[in-house]
């Protein structure tokens, strides 16, 4: 009968990939659904959606609703009476809250960065930022967890922690240099280094005495050691695991000067003046009075010719005379 008429249709741009079509549709549909949600604040259900958007493919509708749910722009809830499922608009997006917390963290981070090597106390952070102390503590914990900052025990303010950026080396004034570990003063280490320095100077002095035939000036000048040399010798001995700087050795040598065992003299070596040290003998071997018990008696103040403490029955004299 009739010929099969093949009507050459224009290729409609239906040949666009279905995805992008769906995407465009999706955003349009999202917008419409959100509009609807805003229009009906009490919530909409499937029925309303169908009446407003009759041409909607179910699959597309499901996808869009899922998207909105994950983006938390709408929520699902049950009507109290009928237990029917309703969709509602989600008022407060959580992301805005996150942004506020980030701001505080940034402020704190900036303050800590400014503090640099020396670090900063948490009450100082509060003063500078004007935030609440508990908030700050929370933020600090969070930042520490993220390994952005670290806390260091400060020696100057007895066991109080100071915060600084993670990769910075704490300044000497905070950790106290090599003599402090974890905020504790290492007196044994100091004593050991002390004795070593003293012994080295003694050896130098004895070596110098062998040159006695050359005269006392030679002997004296030969018994000096500079602080750099001592530092080198101590480092060679490997008593301490880390290297001691010249300043630290000079601090130890200064304590020896205050012990009265050595003396210091500045010598100009080229352009700079360096400190040299040598052993000295005290002017007296010992004050003569300490050789009798009264010289070192702890109760000398109350000793007298009458009363409990008398020289006649003095316990210290009894011990001394035996």
């Amino acid at each position, binding site marked *: 009968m009739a010929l099969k008429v093949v009507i050459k249709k224009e290729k409609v741009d239906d040949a666009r990939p279905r995805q992008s079509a769906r995407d465009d549709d999706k955003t349009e549909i999202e917008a419409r659904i959100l509009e609807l949600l805003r229009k009906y604040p009490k919530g909409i259900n499937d029925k309303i959606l169908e009446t407003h958007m009759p041409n909607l493919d179910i699959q597309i509708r499901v996808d869009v609703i899922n998207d909105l749910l994950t983006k938390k722009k709408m929520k699902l809830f049950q009507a109290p009476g009928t237990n029917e499922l309703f969709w509602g608009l989600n008022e407060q997006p959580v992301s805005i809250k996150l942004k506020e917390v980030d701001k505080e963290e940034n402020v704190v981070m900036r303050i800590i960065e400014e503090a640099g090597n020396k670090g900063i106390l948490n009450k100082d952070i509060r003063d500078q930022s004007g935030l609440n102390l508990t908030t700050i503590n929370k933020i600090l914990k969070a930042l520490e967890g993220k390994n952005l900052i670290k806390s260091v025990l400060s020696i100057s303010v007895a066991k109080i922690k100071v915060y600084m950026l993670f990769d910075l080396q704490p300044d000497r004034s905070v950790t106290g240099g090599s003599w402090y570990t974890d905020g504790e003063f290492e007196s044994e280490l100091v004593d050991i280094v002390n004795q070593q320095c003293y012994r080295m100077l003694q050896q130098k002095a004895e070596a110098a005495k062998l040159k006695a035939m050359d*005269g*006392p000036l030679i002997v004296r000048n030969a018994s000096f050691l500079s602080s750099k040399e001592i530092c080198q010798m101590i480092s060679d001995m490997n008593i301490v695991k880390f290297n001691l700087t010249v300043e630290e050795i000079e601090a130890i040598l200064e304590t020896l000067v205050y012990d009265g065992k050595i003396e210091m003299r500045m010598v100009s070596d080229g352009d700079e003046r360096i400190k040299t040290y040598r052993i*000295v003998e005290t002017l*007296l071997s010992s004050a003569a009075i300490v050789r009798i018990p*009264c010289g070192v008696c702890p109760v000398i103040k109350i000793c007298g010719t009458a009363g409990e403490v008398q020289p006649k029955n003095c316990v210290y004299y009894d011990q001394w005379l035996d």
Partner: protein
Amino acid sequence: MEKLSAKSDHIYLGEAIVKKALAVMIQHNLVKFQASERNNNVAEYTMIHHNVYCLIRYPKYLYMIKRIYGTSEEILLEILLNLGQASASNVIFHSANRLNEANDSEVLSPSALHQSFQRLAQDNFIIRCPKLAENATLLKVPTLEIEEKEKFAVPNVEIEPIARMLKEKATQLGGHCDSEIIWRVNHERFDIELRNVILVNAAARRVDTTAGELYHLILKLWRESSNPDSPVTTPVSYNVIKDAVRKNDSSPILLEHFDHYLRVLYEDSAGLIDRAGDAGGGQFNLDYSKVFENLACASLDSIVLERFGSKALRLFRLTRIQKFMEQDQMQNVAMIPAKEAKMFTYKLLEHNFLQIKELKKGTSNFAPVKSFILYHVELPQVVRTTLEASYKGLFNAMVRQMHDLTENQRLLEKHAMLESMLERLKGDGVPDEEIAELSDTMPPAEKSLVEKIHLMSDNLTLGQTQADETILILESYLKFKSKEL
């Protein structure tokens, strides 16, 4: 100052005994008299504290004289110390007697002793006592005076009467030509000598023994040229010192390295020699106040070390050198743990080695103001406290010695009697068994107890001498410090 009648009233001993006691003390230079200000006819008596104190130093004097000169001078001095004040002939006579008793073989001629006497006077170890003033006989209370140039002038002594008396084995010399010229021991000179010993020892410790020798020579030069009362000696030039060293027959090392030794001594921080100028190759003098300050500090350091420990010593020296320190600074610079540093600081404060000075920080009128608490060492005060403690220590040693001896007096007397009896019998030639029998009357336990008591007494005497040494240093510091001001 007391009048004679006042003294008798106080003491209830009777005027005659009081007079005699005063006379003895005046004879031994322990008491002096002068006319009272209110009433010229009455004498007032004052004690010379220093001379009384020097009684304890007599053994040291004898040892020093023996070391510097020899036995005959030592005996001369001993006799003079025993007599208090005596004329030259008297002293020579008694010394000759003593020496002859000691060694019968040699008889010492009095002229040799006369020369020894002159040596002692030349070096000012003995001094002439003031004599009666011209109008003295007119006054009830005589005045005594002596001229500067006569103080050490030895008069001519007639040897023959002395030699004659000695031959006759007389015990008293009788009248002699110079009986008006009376001598006594010069304590100030001995003080200088004792101080010099301490200084020379310090120099020997600081450098070496040769330096000690050099320093000894230089001290002699200073003493000869300076006024003994001034706190700084007159400068002595390099050339003079060098001459003295050459003349003195010193060790070859000293001659060879003389320059170096001098340099090491004057560059030393103890202040044993100060370079005062460049004339004559260099002028050198000694500032007593500086060197005795260092010695006094060394004594205090030693006392703090023995009483409290080395950490306390570090804190003490630190505070003294840096003048004013806060507690935190002290523990940081001294590198001592905080707790220990605090403990030692407060201990030193408690025993008055450290003093506190408070400075207020704010100026508020209302709220309590925080203050700086600074620790410092007030050296004269600490030295005075320690000096008092040293006097007390010396006194305690003497009391203890007296107590020990009186407690066991009976035993000691018995032992002494036994010993003298044994000596006599031995001298008479009694056989040994009888002597042994007699000595057995005293059981060995008692003998060992007597030994022990003697040993204790000797130790206590030595202890007193030691205390005296520290007292000398501290007293000298205070004396020169007050002079410099």
